[in-house]
């Protein structure tokens, strides 16, 4: 029901930007994989239903990979990538894609930066030429850098500062991660965005934008060997960067103390509680824990009125008017498993939080109901069929999965792994997860106008 989605909008809109709540895997599309001599990894996904094609280029660098004190650098560079190169001057990229009737976009997460275009299939070579060209040919004037800084600051205003839910999430991340740079917002802290300069930008660009740090995914009405030929022509001449190594970010120590935040903002109309637990991610050849957590999130909060938390907090008693559970294992390092509870009008935050903790305890006692697990697995199976309707969504998912270090074999195995998870595995994963000392609880509340 859409109404509930609206509530999520204010509670979680920032989270929603980067998290695909329920990951699904592909079934029928044909995939072919190549690697160029300079290290570029290529995946072609065929879908011949419509004569359109999507190019996505993924760099294994994101908001958590910048130098200390320079937050927002990855995202700033993403914006500047549209400014022009030695070969194609200012505005040529956008204008060319546009004149060919295509659309283009880009996005930055904690772990990756991605560029995407969708265009009619006969123009594939042209956009491959353009995308390859800006991997190492970027040119920027001072004016480009300064104007785009204003745009990024406006973006931060729009997406974060104007959105209490996003501000709370930023504070929650800063508290959840004691050592890992996931504590730093992708868009950056305002005072640091204001100081990023040309040297920072080009140092970052040269260090991370290289064929051996990128994954090219071409999806749609194309033939794999044709794509390989164009890739050799346009991406082939790019220079291998020998300094690129596997990412090693500071990891979390054992966490010993539950953290609590009270966030007050007069724009919060209905108070709510967010609880984030530090949670493991998907890893190559080790996906069962993450699969168990995805199912756990579905059981607790993703099963409509039959979700465990909905039943315990909204149906059996009138504690909450909304509850949810969110998890994605699509990260390079440990990230989070989140719970949200919006208390009913007459219920205090303390009562609601106690009820949440009680419900989690009871869940750990009672275990998973088999019929619910069977139903959830069925609906996951169906979501794979529905996902195939949009090959660009398939391309985006596979891009995320490859960029965090999974292989195509891992990705192909994922649907079966999800189906094979037992209730015992889910309960074991839940017991490991729900440790208050590795959690943050945030209360979002309004405040009287001063």
């Amino acid at each position, binding site marked *: *029901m*859409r*109404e*509930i989605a*609206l*509530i999520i909008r*204010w509670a979680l809109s920032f989270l929603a930007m980067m998290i695909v709540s329920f990951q699904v895997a592909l079934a029928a599309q044909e995939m072919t994989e190549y690697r160029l001599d300079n290290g570029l990894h290529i995946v072609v996904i065929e879908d011949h*239903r*419509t*004569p*359109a094609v999507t190019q996505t280029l993924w760099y294994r660098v994101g908001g958590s990979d910048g130098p200390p004190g320079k937050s927002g650098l990855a995202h700033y560079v993403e914006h500047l990538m549209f400014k022009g190169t030695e070969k194609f001057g200012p*505005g040529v990229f*956008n*204008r060319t894609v*546009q*004149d*060919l*009737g*295509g*659309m283009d976009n880009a996005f930055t997460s904690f772990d990756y930066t991605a560029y995407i275009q969708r*265009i*009619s299939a006969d123009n594939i070579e042209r956009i491959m030429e353009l995308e390859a060209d800006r991997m190492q040919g970027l040119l920027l004037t001072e004016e480009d850098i300064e*104007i*785009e*800084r*204003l*745009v990024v*600051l*406006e*973006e931060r*205003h*729009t*997406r974060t*500062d*104007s959105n209490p839910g996003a501000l709370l999430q930023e504070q929650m991340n800063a508290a959840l991660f004691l050592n890992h740079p996931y504590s730093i917002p992708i868009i950056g802290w305002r005072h640091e965005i204001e100081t990023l300069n040309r040297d920072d930008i080009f140092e970052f660009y040269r260090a991370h934008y290289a064929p051996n740090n990128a994954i090219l995914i071409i999806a749609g009405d194309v033939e794999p060997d044709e794509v390989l030929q164009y890739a050799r022509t346009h991406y082939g001449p790019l220079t291998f960067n020998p300094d690129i190594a596997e990412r090693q970010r500071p990891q979390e120590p054992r966490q010993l103390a539950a953290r609590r935040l009270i966030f007050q903002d*007069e*724009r*919060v*109309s*209905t108070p709510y509680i967010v609880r984030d637990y530090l949670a493991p991610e998907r890893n190559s050849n080790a996906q069962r824990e993450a699969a168990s957590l995805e199912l756990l999130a579905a059981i607790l909060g993703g*099963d*409509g*009125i*039959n979700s465990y938390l909905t039943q315990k907090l*909204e*149906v059996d008693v009138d504690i909450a*008017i*909304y509850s949810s559970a969110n998890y994605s294992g699509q990260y390079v390092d440990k990230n989070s498993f989140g719970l949200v509870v919006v208390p*009913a009008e007459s219920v205090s935050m303390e009562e609601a939080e106690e009820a949440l903790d009680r419900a989690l305890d009871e869940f750990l006692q009672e275990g998973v109901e088999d019929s619910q697990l069977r*139903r*959830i697995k*069925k*609906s996951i*199976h*169906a979501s794979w*069929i*529905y996902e195939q*309707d*949009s090959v*660009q969504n398939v391309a985006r998912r596979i891009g995320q999965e490859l960029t965090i270090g999974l292989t195509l074999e891992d990705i192909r195995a994922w649907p079966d792994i999800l189906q094979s998870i037992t209730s015992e595995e889910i309960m074991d994963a839940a017991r490991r997860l729900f440790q208050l000392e590795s959690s943050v609880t945030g209360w979002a509340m309004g405040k009287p106008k001063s």
Partner: protein
Amino acid sequence: MRRSFAIFLCVSLMVAAPSYGLEVKQVTSPGGLKAWLVEDHTIPFTALEIDFGGGAVLEAPDKLGTAYFLAGMMEEGAGDYSADEFQRRQQELAVDLSFDAYQETMSVSVKFLTENKDESLELLRLALEQPRFDSDRLEFVRSQILAIIANREKDATDIAYMALNKESFGDHPLGDVIEGQVETIQSISAEDLEEFRQQALTRDDVIVGAAGDITEEELGSLLDELFAGLSGPGPSSPPDKAQSLINGGLTVIDYPSPQSFIVFRHEGILSDNPDFLTAYVMNEILGSQSYLSRLKEEVREKRGLTYGIASYLSSYDDVAFISGQFSTDNNTVAEAVEVVKDIWTDLAENGVSEEELQSVKTYLTGAYPLRFDGNSRIASILAAMQRDERDITYFDHRNDRVNALTVEDINRVAARLLKPEELHFVVVGQPVGLESARY
């Protein structure tokens, strides 16, 4: 020469025809109901977009929000299924149902697997014909809607649009907020919802777009099964014709934020006007969401005043608008508003260049086939085209019609449509150097 010319013609015709292979069929059920269909058996599921022609404007003034409330109750149990049984059944069948309320329509978006077709449709039929308004679920949804209303009162975007709609429609129901008001939501009963359902969900005013793994025959019998049990036209009388009340001016609403959210609007052009497509193309140059428009170029690219700015046409049954929106720092609102007015004036007075028009044409005609991206998108486009009373061959000729537009066409419509002095700006924030005014 002549021969090569002929070949060229032939090629361009092939391009102009829907080479993306979108074959739209009109299906008439044995019972006389109509739908548009694009058959594609590649993936074993079907998407349906169902659009009923009665929305929130049919509500009684003391029952505002009934349509929205009804949409919220449609998955809360039907027939013999209580809410939890209904949703369990829905998940077992993996059928996707989504109900929405708008001012002039109620819509249902559906996706079902071929293997579960009959059971899925039976569940949908129950939801449409016999929704249960069990009191515990009714009270629960009511409390959610009240929370959404409370949120709306503190959301800059909602505050801006509520004010702009008031300026646009005055007391006409089109200016009302879809979620209703606290007092009206508190007064809505199960009987109100049932009465509204009978008025709004009728088989005489239903539009269906279908795409995917289904044949014409199957779709025909589906239509009859799905809608036979709904009532004919209800006793409702449509509200008075709406008219645009918007006047040039500036409304500033104080809101605690470092950035202001700005919406602006004046009267527009109805979608059945012969010049609508021309206006649409003109607006792409002015303020497209995806194309590098003049607004985006001047306000974002050249001045860095915003993260995003766009203008758009909207058309109701009797009234239409051209509107736009953006956010900017409180210190730069005055400057950005002036830039918007200047762009408006320049386009009205000086029109577009041949080059600009050519560029937007290649963009629009190239992008057109890309929008038919999967069964769900296609189904919803098919429904929208019928709602706008387009001909079923519209898809075949749309790009030709875009290509036939001249600079003179665009400039004529720009000069007539764009009236910078009539723009009403609503600013929600704490802008520096701006005060509410009428002009």
